[in-house]
Structure formats: structure tokens, C-alpha cells
């Protein structure tokens, strides 16, 4: 009776062990022996999978590298965009100064016309001596007034709509006056942006060209303005002989 006490559990355990061992052996056998006829097919499949897996790893590496380089390029573009903006701003500022863009600001307008009345009077007094050219506005008058305006601190000047830039020439072209090689005629309207008082003061100096014309009886006047607009220089800035000195 005493023996029975442990015999039964042991019997159960051993029985279970038996079953487990059998199933384990079964499993081992079935796995270890795939159908022999498909063995070569399986091997080639395995080889293919292994190759594929290697390729996939390579792809992943390449993709990673490409992503990095793309990110770098994108950063370069962003940096470039900032540079473009900076350069564009600088160029705009320079164009405002050089006359290539329309500008505005306070300033004066100078009106000048031929002294027709003076000529009529002179003719009536002494018909033989009165020369019409002595009563006209000449290229030199305009040229000197432009330089007087510059002495007065003019920042932009135009004559009858022609922007006067650094290299502008004012000269006689037959019976007309050429500014930037465009013919203009009376009446003349000179616009100048700058301090209105300073510019007027220079023009009204005794020895100034403007004052000389005024004294001679030419119909001239100055108008101070809070805001005047001056159009852009339509000519070109070509440098065929000159180049920057040193690095720019």
C-alpha cells in the first residue's frame, strides 16, 4: 500500500515523458528529412534569398548615402538663396545710385526757357545787332547748372526726362541740345532730388549760371518740392576698355 502512493504519479510522469520523447523524435525526423526530390529546388531558392538579402542591404546603404547627399544639397541651396537675396539687395541699392532705376525724394524743379521777350525788345531797339542765339538757352548753360546742382548736393538729376548720370554728356547737336545723345529743346525742365534749400542757394549765388540767366532776363524759376520722381537712365553702362583693378 505504501508503494502505491508514489507509484501512480511516477507512472503518469513516465507515461508523459514517453509521449513527449516520441513527439520530439517525430518532429526531428520530419524536419531533418524534407522530401528528397525537392531538395535541389529548395537549395536554389535559399541561394536566391541569400543573394536578395545581400542586395537589399546594399540598396539600404546606397539609399542612406543618397539621402545624406540630398540633405547637403538642399542646405547648399538654402545658403545660396540667402546669398542671392543679399546680392540682389546690394544690386538694387547700386542701381538706385547709378541711375538705372526710377527714384523719388524731395528736391527742386528748375524751369528755363529761351529769352524770346528779350530778343523781341533787342530787335525793336537795334534790328541789325540783335542776334537770336544770344537769347537762347545753350548746352553749356544746362551743363553748368547741372554741376551747380551737384555742388548743392543733388543726388539725382534729369533734364526734360533724360536722366543725367556720371557719364552723361550735354552738348550742342546742331540746333538742339543733346543729353545722353537724345535731342531735347526748350522749355527746359531740370529736376533734382536733394536738399531743396541747399540746391536753391547754390543756384541763386551771384556768379552762378542760373543767376546769370536770371539777371539777363531769361524766364527762369525754381520750385521746391516735397516729392519729385525722376525716371531711370535708359542708356547702357558698357566697359570695353576699362576693367576693375584688383580682386572684386
Amino acid at each position, binding site marked *: 500500500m505504501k508503494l502505491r502512493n508514489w507509484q501512480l504519479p511516477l507512472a503518469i510522469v513516465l507515461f*508523459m515523458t514517453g509521449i513527449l520523447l516520441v513527439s520530439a523524435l517525430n518532429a526531428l525526423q520530419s524536419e531533418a528529412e524534407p522530401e528528397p526530390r525537392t531538395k535541389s529546388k529548395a537549395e536554389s531558392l535559399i541561394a536566391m534569398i541569400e543573394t536578395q538579402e545581400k542586395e537589399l542591404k546594399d540598396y539600404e546603404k546606397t539609399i542612406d548615402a*543618397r539621402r545624406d547627399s540630398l540633405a547637403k544639397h538642399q542646405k547648399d541651396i538654402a545658403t545660396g538663396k540667402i546669398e542671392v537675396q543679399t546680392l540682389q539687395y546690394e544690386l538694387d541699392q547700386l542701381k538706385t545710385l547709378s541711375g538705372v532705376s526710377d527714384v523719388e*525724394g524731395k528736391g527742386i524743379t528748375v524751369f528755363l526757357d529761351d529769352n524770346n521777350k528779350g530778343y523781341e525788345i533787342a530787335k525793336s531797339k537795334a534790328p541789325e545787332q540783335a542776334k537770336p542765339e544770344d537769347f537762347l538757352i545753350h548746352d553749356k548753360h544746362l551743363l553748368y547748372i547741372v554741376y551747380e546742382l551737384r555742388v548743392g548736393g543733388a*543726388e539725382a538729376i534729369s533734364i526734360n526726362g533724360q536722366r543725367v548720370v556720371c557719364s552723361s554728356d550735354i552738348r550742342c547737336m546742331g540746333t538742339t541740345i543733346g543729353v545722353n545723345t537724345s535731342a531735347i529743346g526748350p522749355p527746359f525742365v531740370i529736376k533734382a532730388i536733394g536738399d531743396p534749400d541747399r540746391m536753391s542757394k547754390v543756384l541763386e549765388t551771384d556768379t552762378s549760371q542760373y543767376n546769370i540767366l536770371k539777371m539777363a532776363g531769361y524766364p527762369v524759376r525754381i520750385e521746391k518740392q516735397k516729392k519729385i520722381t525722376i525716371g531711370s537712365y535708359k542708356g547702357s553702362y558698357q566697359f570695353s576698355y576699362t576693367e576693375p583693378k*584688383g580682386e572684386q
Partner: protein
Amino acid sequence: MTNLKNWQMPVFITFLLLGLLITVQFRSQQNYLRDLPQQKTEDLILMLKKTNTKKAELEKELGDLERQHRLISTNVSEEETLIKQLRQDITRQKMALGIIPVKGPGITVTIDTPIAYFDMIDIINELWNSQAEAIAINNHRVSSWSKIYWSEQTRALTIDGEAVAFPCTIKATGDPEKLDSGLHLSGGVLDNLDIYGINPKIKKEKELELHAANQPNIEHLKATPTP
């Protein structure tokens, strides 16, 4: 109690063995599952299909990246071109304004005796008229805000607050022939000066160097806003 000990030991050993057996079997099962040679053919085919799909996906991704790369490379080169153009344009504007040093062929005009400020203006105007590209009076670069005038205080021809010393040399870059013939036009600047016994010496030069003018002091001027 001594009875119990008798069966306890074998049961304990048996259970221990049972536990080990189960563990070992589980482990080996796991390994079989991972080992390709242990896979069923259908499973292998399935795996191959999966790797094929993944490969196709990666290829597509790589293609996308390459496309983006090409696109962005074009953008980079376009941007580089734009930056180059902007720099060139800026240099040109600076040359026009006279705010950078320049060099080139041209002429020098040397005047020994003092001249009136309007004579100086006439000479400068004639040089611009003859397509001068840059002008300097005694190394003082002429710009569009240069102030050329007679100073009552110093009794001197003055440019931008600086008395012009004589003999004075005017340098102008451009076509030497054109500049020379411009000054020599009959009834021109030189003829006018000749009346007063002033005969400037004109010399064609292969290479002249001109300093930069100061940056303009702009207070009132601003670009008209473009709509």
C-alpha cells in the same frame, strides 16, 4: 515521513528531466524555424516573394532619390549662374559709379596753369562725350556727385572740398584715339583754352590706373517702389 522521502526523490528527478527535455525540444524547434534549410519550399517561395517586393520598393525609393538629386543639382547650378551674374552686374554698377579702382588704356591731359572751374567741367564733359569710361582729376575719381567749383575761401578750383593742384593731370580710360580726337575737335575745348594761351598736353596711354571715389552720401534719394 520517511515513507514520503522514498517517492519524493524519483518524482523530483523525473520532473527535472522532463523540464530539461521540454526546454531542449523548444529550443531546437526555434532553430529549425530560423534555419532556411529547415523551411518548407512554400515558405521559401513566400520569402523570396517578400524580398522581391522589398527590393522593388527600395529600387523605387532609390529612383526617387536619384531624380530629386538630379533636379536639385540643376537648381544648384542655376543658382550658381545667377550668383555669378549678380556679381558681374554689381561690379559693373560699381564701375559706373566710380566706387572701385579701375585700369585700362586711355589718355592723360596735363594742364600747367590754373583754369576756371567751367573749363574743367568742359574738359570732363568732352571726355564723357568721347566715351570715356572713367575719369580722375589728380587722382581724384570723378563721380556723378563730384562737386567741381571755384572756392571763394581758398581762391582755388576745388573738387569735393579738395583744391586742385597745378600742374594738374586728368586721366581718362577709354579708346585713346576717340578721346584724343574728341578733345581736338575744332571749336572744341582745346580751341577755347588756346584763346587764353592754355595748351594742355595730351598723351595716349596703354594702361592707366584710377582710384575709387568715396561712397556717395545719400540722404533724400530712394527707389520708386515698383507696384
